[in-house]
């Protein structure tokens, strides 16, 4: 860390907390505006919001202000403590992933040796929050949504982890900075012009990872837990005002974080070809490169979301257990064999 030399521990911690606390809402706003409001509208041959700010950029800010003004309603027979804590638990998992994603050689909140493992572990905390929301709402639709979410997220956690194992084998490290460096210094049959982004060798892993991410984020075609046309929003049914805002921020914040993880693991992270991986320049342009890659991955996520109908619960489970997990296991075996062979 560059500023680790000058600041006390509490000052560092304060800065880190501030950075993460500012990043999550900003990321949710950006993804919400660019993809949910604008890309979806243009795909559906309409304009989307145009009034708040130029081209409607402030629409989500206005929506957020509206949510904050709303009454904080508790259902009559709700389990008040569980009901109130659930959105915080969901948002907490989002915050924790942001701690680990690097955007430059020195720009990372916490550079941990077990980065990938922790990021995936943090992401599964949200299941607990969603189950709490489903149970605490004292609503049948919510309960069904919560249970569906729990079943789905547990099923898709496995292919998510297994898809990453291939990358970890190839890079030889769990550290996210190490994975970026491995891609930057890698060579394709002796030619190191563009390094070796793992999407080239781990394309199966990338596909499985993206599908599992889609399910982890409960985006269509895996949006059974919220399915508006069946269970009318699932575990979110009873939430109003800022508690609903928490869920919204959690959804889009996590989408941004997972897009970041995908960019780091498969697209070379903050590194661009032509610049030395240790160069200080990357501390400046790294965040921009990273942002561009994240937006590309997020575009894929939302493109699928707006194009497909949704699976049924049993189809969704059998897809995870019968297709994704065997494929990712085979990918691990092949990667391991090739790693030893070369």
């Amino acid at each position, binding site marked *: 860390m560059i500023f680790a030399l000058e600041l006390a521990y509490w000052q560092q911690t304060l800065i880190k907390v501030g950075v993460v606390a500012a990043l999550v809402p900003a990321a949710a706003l950006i993804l919400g505006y660019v993809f949910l409001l604008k890309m979806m509208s243009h795909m559906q*041959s309409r304009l989307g919001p145009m009034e708040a700010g130029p081209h409607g950029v402030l629409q989500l800010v206005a929506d957020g202000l509206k949510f904050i003004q709303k009454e904080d309603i508790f259902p009559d027979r709700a389990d008040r403590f569980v009901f109130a804590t659930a959105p915080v638990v969901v948002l907490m998992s989002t915050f924790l992933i942001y701690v680990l994603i690097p955007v430059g050689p020195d720009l990372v909140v916490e550079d941990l040796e077990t980065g990938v493992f922790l990021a995936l572990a943090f992401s599964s905390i949200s299941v607990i929050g969603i189950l709490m929301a489903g149970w605490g709402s004292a609503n049948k639709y919510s309960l*069904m949504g919560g249970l569906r979410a729990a079943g789905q997220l547990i099923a898709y956690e496995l292919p998510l982890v297994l898809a990453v194992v291939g990358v970890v084998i190839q890079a030889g490290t769990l550290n996210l900075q190490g994975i970026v460096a491995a891609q930057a210094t890698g060579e394709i049959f002796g030619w190191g012009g563009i390094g070796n982004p793992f999407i080239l060798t781990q394309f199966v892993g990338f596909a499985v990872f993206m599908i599992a991410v889609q399910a982890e984020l409960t985006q*269509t075609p895996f949006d059974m837990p919220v*399915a508006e*046309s*069946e269970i009318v929003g699932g575990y979110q049914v009873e939430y109003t005002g800022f508690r609903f805002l928490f869920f919204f921020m959690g959804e889009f914040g996590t989408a941004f974080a997972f897009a970041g993880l995908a960019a780091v693991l498969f697209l070379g992270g903050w590194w661009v070809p032509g610049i030395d991986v240790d160069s200080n320049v990357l501390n400046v342009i790294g965040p921009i490169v990273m942002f561009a890659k994240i937006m590309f991955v997020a575009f894929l996520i939302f493109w699928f979301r707006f194009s*497909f*109908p949704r699976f049924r*619960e049993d189809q969704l489970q059998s897809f995870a257990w019968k297709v994704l997990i065997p494929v990712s296991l085979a990918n691990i075996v092949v990667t391991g064999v090739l790693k030893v062979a070369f």
Partner: protein
Amino acid sequence: MTAISERRQLAYIASQAADARLNLELETGGMTINLGPQHPATHGTLRLVARLDGEQVVEADPVMGYMHRGYEKLTEVRTYPQVTTLVNRIDWLGSFANEVPFILAAERLMEVDAPPRAQWIRTVFFELSRIANISLFLGDMALQLGAITPAFYAFRDREHVLNQIEAATGGRFHPNFDRIGGLKDDLPKGWIEETRGAMAKLRTFCDIIEDLVSGNEIFQARTRGIGVIPPEVGLAYGLSGANIRASGVDWDLRRDVPVGLAWNEVDWKVWTHPDGDSYARFWLRLMEVREACGIVEQLLDGLPSGPIMAKVPRIIKVPAGEAWVSTENPLGEMGYYIVSKGDLVPFRVKIRSASFNNISITPWLLKGVFVPDVVTILASLYFILGDIDR
């Protein structure tokens, strides 16, 4: 097709028996869930009381009447020309098609025949209503299954048809254009060419839907084999329209019961599908939109000249008698049974609307299906609340 559904129900009964003892020991009773009256899958205010066992429906009961507007009674205090304004609102998506059977029944009692040009233009508007109605279904079914984008394409392209209806009649949703003895106006200048253009756009829309929705693997996985209606069960419940044709029953009032309209003058095909599942009902309606585009184009080619109004008295009094006329409306068979005592107003009007019968099969059909399939089946049966509650 019968075998699939029977096997499914037998398997369900067997699993119920196996679970029963366990449920008694653990005291895990079922759960009753209210789908509606404010539920997005019910297109309005249908209420479905479903008893669930986990995510499986044990029994489901439709409760209707939340939107009852008393049209049958209202017609008894409206003169015959005023009734068309009311009945426009029964199936609000294909409104012109609601007027036609009533007017035909009144004409039959008065022994008036509309001139050929009026009959042809009536048929054109009848088919335009069908396209406007069903093209929205094509997008809505996808929406119920979780794909939002096709719904917007449906709204966009339905507009081409609504624009044509508005250009000729002045009303987008409620034209009120049909008169006893003919039509209110002739077609405006240039309308025929514009309508041909609109039909071309609708054909493109059908291609898009075929690509985007019915060709999609997830859509097929969600709809194939779901909600299978065997033909004899469908007939016993009085299903009509695309719902019964999707079960393989070749029955279309447009072809089978001539009522004076111009369908028999043009070349078209009644589609059927052997499967009787949700996918068949979707596919069949898609083909019907295409067929309707063809009917409209052919009718416009051969439109006869002449007057659009027969000689009818200024104040319409319908002679005493009874008449029943039904036509193949977008949702199925729709008919009016008029009893007249020779007054300015009907003595009694019985409205047979398609959705009321189409929805009556739901308790039988929803037994043993999963909650997501409830939505698929309701969407594929395609009802309109105004058509159920009248």
